[in-house]
């Protein structure tokens, strides 16, 4: 036993060992008690390690167990960040060495959430010489800049980046060549899809192109898009690897799903309904496309969901992948408005919130998105004309598709899919100045206040269940924010009471803010004011005329955080 210190292994050691042993063994009763209090003897940093593995709900319960747990949470920024993220309905953004530490993320998250609960306008910024906003993704907008005079050069596309504390980006813009055609943006992938000029190959045939939002360079990985025939209308959308192109040509809609990385293209299915008037096309996820369909009498308006398979159908020629097995589709019927509304006017196309961009410090869950449909009509209950709006969480809607995979195309009546996961509300005519704009689980509309003054107000509806739950708690405890109302499912004013099968079960937070004084109500009524909801806040694009009769846009953030 060379090297052992002899002294310590003798009597002194023996005593020490005995003491140590005595503290561990003992009578069965003390042993039992010690077992019970074992956890309380666990040091704080061990408890912290345990709690780092817990989700929000368990953490909330955990910190209610005893003082020590509560103190551990209070002393840990990362646990508080986990709790705060969940309570705000957000997810943590990507982590890398360049981005913020947890303390700063938590601070910004609290400011961000507070800003949504106490909406306030920021100062205006001035963007010269721009016309309509054509697309928005993350903090990035694309505008068309027309040719002002022959010496001014060709028309341009302007990418405007709004400064964002959610991402740590500054204001910047770049001007690029490109026309007034359809655009799609994906800020998280730094991509812009746009319709190129007609190619020389044949009469007026177009092709889509991909370029970087930040530099304008053509994307190196991009394959070539399918040719788009000369058409009356184009729609384009980008979602992850897919670009959805829809064209209205010779009175008929066709769509293509183009995987811009592999070059695979899937076309609209063979049994594609010819006479149906489609009004919009959106990606729901990486397998489903939503199209809105309204036929001539508008009473059978429905949401059509098509599946696409990204070339899986076995075809080896890129342009004809629809020859494989049948791709099932769903027709989700809308409520029969005949009971409550007569002479329903064409339905405003459904809007579907985009998934959050993944470059923010914290972001909303991509599954927490809203689908909103607005229809106009004349109520049978009175002579008043009205608008009906239906808001549905997209996850509820998608659950009808993903939980019951089908072999063939089916039609789903409203009663089966709509009533319990949706909110149906009616507003008097003239009230709603334009359709809703959506982001995540929030929807924003501009409307005349119901009270006599008729002032234009901005109405934010937030359907996120956790935020609603917290707002209810705050209201119950008397800490509710002014201007905020929490609407329970059963308190909603709606048209549903009169119509069987129509119910409102979706609670939400309603916030109303008046327009800033310098924006006259008339602007909103003449549609010179465009409201866009995005992840950072609400964007007001005010179109005015300067002395050169070129339109300009001012913007203000609904809040600064």
């Amino acid at each position, binding site marked *: 036993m060379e090297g052992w*210190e002899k002294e310590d292994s003798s009597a002194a050691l023996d005593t020490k060992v005995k003491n140590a*042993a005595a503290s561990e063994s003992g009578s069965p009763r003390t042993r039992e008690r010690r077992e019970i209090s074992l956890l309380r003897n666990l040091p704080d940093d061990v408890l912290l390690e345990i709690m780092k593995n817990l989700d929000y709900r368990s953490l909330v319960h955990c910190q209610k167990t005893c003082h020590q747990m509560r103190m551990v949470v209070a002393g840990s920024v990362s646990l508080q960040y986990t709790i705060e993220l969940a309570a705000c309905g957000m997810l943590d953004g990507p982590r890398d060495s360049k981005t913020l530490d947890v303390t700063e993320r938590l601070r910004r998250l609290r400011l961000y959430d507070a800003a949504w609960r106490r909406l306030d306008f920021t100062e205006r910024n001035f963007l010269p010489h721009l016309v309509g906003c054509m697309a928005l993704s993350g903090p990035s907008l694309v505008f068309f800049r027309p040719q002002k005079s022959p010496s001014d050069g060709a028309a341009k596309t302007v990418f405007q980046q709004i400064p964002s504390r959610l991402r740590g980006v500054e204001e910047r813009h770049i001007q690029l060549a490109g026309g007034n055609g359809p655009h799609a943006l994906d800020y998280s992938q730094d991509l812009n899809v746009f319709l190129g000029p007609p190619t020389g190959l044949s009469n007026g045939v177009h092709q889509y192109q991909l370029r970087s939002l930040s530099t304008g360079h053509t994307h190196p990985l991009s394959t070539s898009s399918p040719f788009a025939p000369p058409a009356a209308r184009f729609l384009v959308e980008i979602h992850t690897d897919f670009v959805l192109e829809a064209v209205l040509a010779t009175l008929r809609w066709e769509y293509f799903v183009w995987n811009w990385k592999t070059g695979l293209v899937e076309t609209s299915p063979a049994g594609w309904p010819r006479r149906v008037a489609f009004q919009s096309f959106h990606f729901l996820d990486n397998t489903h496309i939503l199209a809105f369909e309204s036929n001539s009498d508008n009473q059978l308006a429905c949401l059509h969901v098509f599946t696409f398979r990204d070339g899986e159908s076995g075809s080896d020629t890129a342009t004809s992948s629809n020859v494989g097995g049948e791709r099932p589709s769903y027709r989700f019927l809308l409520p029969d408005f005949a009971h409550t509304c007569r002479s329903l006017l064409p339905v405003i196309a459904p809007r579907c919130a985009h998934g959050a961009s993944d470059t923010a410090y914290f972001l909303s869950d991509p599954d927490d998105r809203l689908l909103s449909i607005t229809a106009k009509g004349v109520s049978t209950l009175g002579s008043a004309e009205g608008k009906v709006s239906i808001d549905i969480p997209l996850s509820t809607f998608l659950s009808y598709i993903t939980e019951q995979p089908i072999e063939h195309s089916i039609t789903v009546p409203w009663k089966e899919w709509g009533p319990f996961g949706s909110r149906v509300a009616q507003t008097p005519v003239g009230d709603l100045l334009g359709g809703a704009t959506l982001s995540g689980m929030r929807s924003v509309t501009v409307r005349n206040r119901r009270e006599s003054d008729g002032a234009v107000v901005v109405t934010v509806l937030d359907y996120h269940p956790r935020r609603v739950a917290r707002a209810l708690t705050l209201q119950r405890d008397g800490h509710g924010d002014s201007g905020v109302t929490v609407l329970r499912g059963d308190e909603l004013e709606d048209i549903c009471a009169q119509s069987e099968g129509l119910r409102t079960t979706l609670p939400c937070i309603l916030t109303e803010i008046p327009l800033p004084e310098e924006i006259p109500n008339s602007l909103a009524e003449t549609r010179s004011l465009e409201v866009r909801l995005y992840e950072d806040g609400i964007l007001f694009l005010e179109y005015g005329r300067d002395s050169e009769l070129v339109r300009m846009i001012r913007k203000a953030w609904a809040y600064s955080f």
Partner: protein
Amino acid sequence: MPTIVSVDDSTVPGEGSSRLLLLVSSDNKHIVVEEDIMSRSRFISKQVEGFEATSQRHAILLPFSSFVLNKVIEYCSHYRGYYLLEDDPDAAPPGRSPVREWDQEFLDVDRNMLLRIIKAAHYLEIKSLVGSCARAIADMIRGKTTEEMREILGVENDFTPEEEHSPSSKCTG
């Protein structure tokens, strides 16, 4: 007098091989273990540094039973020579520890044993083992109510009724 576990001459450290450590558990069991097995423990490493500074080696007393200590030695032997990121003080990533299949099986023990192991691992400063135990304990209490958590963890409710109903932390407000 404690009985010293006798060590065969052939395993006595020679040049180039690992030296031996004598660990004494609270139930007075003496366990001889190779030094480099236990090098995962920062506590033991610090002791060894102390031995080298004073060129005197002595037994290391540990405040937990041989049953727990053997379990920890089993863990350290399994990962002998492996580099585990969580144990590296310079590279330790924040947050959860990774799921290792062997650890899951190793920690498939009753809850009191698990609590003893995590305590021992914390005492010995073996971060990877603390992390794995923490994950296992978290799995036991995840999704449980406050009352069930108290039951599982053996915690007593030490809140006054007022405290219990006050907002549980400032961040929920």
